[in-house]
């Protein structure tokens, strides 16, 4: 018995995440703070990166982990953005409650559409996700009395966070607020990914029929994943509404879903850090390329995608892994590889 529990302990330590608890989150905070001091004039842009990073992170859970091939993930983000914006205008200007409202709205749209869509699979599912996002886009466009139509939903303003931190002209508060929400969200998503639930999600990703032969109700499981993904996508939408103080129709557009997919693939979809790496690289390249040549920056983005897919099928995260594996100290630990 003693030996059995000893083997247990070793197996458990080996399989657990990084040796240092909260390591990924600590790295994220450190990089975030460093960027805060290094680029004080670009905080609005950096805040947008963090918000998009949260959106891509939620896609990583849905697509990278569970293999749900959605091309309409913007449905949850846009719904969350409009919900948080309308909440701030009509109900309360409390930012944290508004954030929660946005997240719940994103989850709600995911669970209702997912309940129907997840009965299908493959190309049918992909097409239906696009259709749902397009329908929501058109509803937001037509209901101009509520959403502002293609002028966007303007006039959003929120109170200081916790009554203490006022949103300022230099986006300092916005940036740190977005960073805090991203770090907390990252932690929650990582716990889910490393849990029995996450392991089962990856099992469904690789062979759903085999999972059914093991007794798994794959439909229910995927619906829960899809809903959690919708929650975090809704949070990112709410963040963008509060920080930008305006919600545009583009938050529901196909382009938003497509860009997020490109960022995820460039960064690597098998593991969570890939979502953030891909977002940072994509947005900085896009920003720089658009500055250099406002007409042809899409060439550079397209080239980046082709290069990554051909040379690094695992995404940019595989470069990080390659380097980390060759460091004299094994900072990420064996268990850092999941999926």
């Amino acid at each position, binding site marked *: 018995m003693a030996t059995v529990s000893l083997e247990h302990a070793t197996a458990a330590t080996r399989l657990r995440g990084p040796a240092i608890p909260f390591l990924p989150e600590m790295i994220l905070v450190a990089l975030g703070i460093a960027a805060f001091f290094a680029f004080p004039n670009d905080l609005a842009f950096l805040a947008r990166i963090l918000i998009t990073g949260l959106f891509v992170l939620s896609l990583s859970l849905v697509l990278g982990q569970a293999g749900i091939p959605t091309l309409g993930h913007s449905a949850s983000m846009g719904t969350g953005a409009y919900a948080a914006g309308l909440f701030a205008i009509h109900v309360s200007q409390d930012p944290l409650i508004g954030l929660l409202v946005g997240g719940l709205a994103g989850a709600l749209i995911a669970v209702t559409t997912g309940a129907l869509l997840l009965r299908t699979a493959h190309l049918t599912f992909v097409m239906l996700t696009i259709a749902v996002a397009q329908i929501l886009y058109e509803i937001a466009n037509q209901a101009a009395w509520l959403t502002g139509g293609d002028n966007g939903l303007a006039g959003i303003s929120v109170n200081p966070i916790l009554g203490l931190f006022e949103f300022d002209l230099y986006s300092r508060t916005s940036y740190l607020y977005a960073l805090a929400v991203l770090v907390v969200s990252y932690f929650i998503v990582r716990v889910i990914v490393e*849990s*029995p*639930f996450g392991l*089962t999600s990856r099992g469904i990703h690789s062979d759903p029929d085999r999972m*059914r032969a*093991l*007794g798994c109700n794959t439909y229910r499981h995927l619906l829960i994943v899809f809903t959690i993904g919708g929650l975090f996508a809704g949070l990112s939408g709410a963040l963008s509404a509060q920080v930008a103080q305006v919600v545009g129709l583009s938050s529901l557009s196909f382009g938003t879903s497509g860009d997020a997919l490109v960022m995820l693939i460039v960064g690597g979809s098998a593991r969570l850090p890939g979502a953030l790496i891909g977002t940072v690289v994509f947005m900085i390249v896009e920003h720089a390329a658009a500055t250099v040549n406002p007409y042809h920056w899409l060439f550079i983005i397209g080239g980046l995608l082709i290069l990554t897919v051909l040379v690094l099928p695992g995404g940019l995260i595989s470069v990080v892994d390659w380097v980390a594996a060759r460091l004299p100290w094994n900072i990420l630990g064996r268990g850092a590889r999941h999926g």
Partner: protein
Amino acid sequence: MAEVLQLKGLCKSFGGLVVAADVTFGLAPGDRTALIGPNGAGKTTLVNLISGALYPSSGDITLDGRSLVRLSMPARVQAGVARTFQLNRLFRDQTVGDNVRIAVLQQKRQSLRMWQPRADGIAVEAAVEQVLGALHLQARQGRLVRTLAYGEQRLLEIALALALKPRVLLLDEPAAGVPRGESGVIMDVIAGLPAELAVLLIEHDMDLVFRFAKRIVVLASGAVLTIGTPEQVAADERVKQLYFGRAGHVSHANQTGQVSHAGRPH
């Protein structure tokens, strides 16, 4: 002993092609029954019908008297019917331990737990260790499945089914593709299965069948040709004809066998 699984007049046809014709037999706890028959006799079809991958055209399947035919595949597994696959269906990019863990989490209904690391459930880990131990795979626990030798992958296929703690186990050619010299390990594992488990073994290797089975069901063209002890079946003229045929009948039997095999969906 009372039969746990019963097949009653089970029929299945795809258009004009009959793949199961009035199949009736049962399995009692502890049964070691082999299902044999030439290619295309409908052996895998029968496993698919019992496990829920296919729905029968008519007839009934009961577990403890409760009909299974309206239940989905996952519901049948939860009721206690597990199967293995003729071709490995494993999670190749996961470790051996995680493969078994995925199955155990289903059996213990813990696959929705989100707030603990996946290897922290004490009961789950004990079950994982136990299953890996029973199949001599402990040493492989941390290895990715795709790096395992083929024979070990066959063992893991059985491990996943055993992790579900079934009452009825359907083994679809567990030694398929394993070299003769190595099939002994798989036979030992099958011989060591829990005594109260009802096992239905599909196998082409007659050595394995005769070492394992206390009872043999012979299937031909979807119908039960005969059921009996290994000695009875070995002595049965019809079975000899089915497998060895008379000179003129061999090629004919093979042809029809191949046609219906090709027509069988996977």
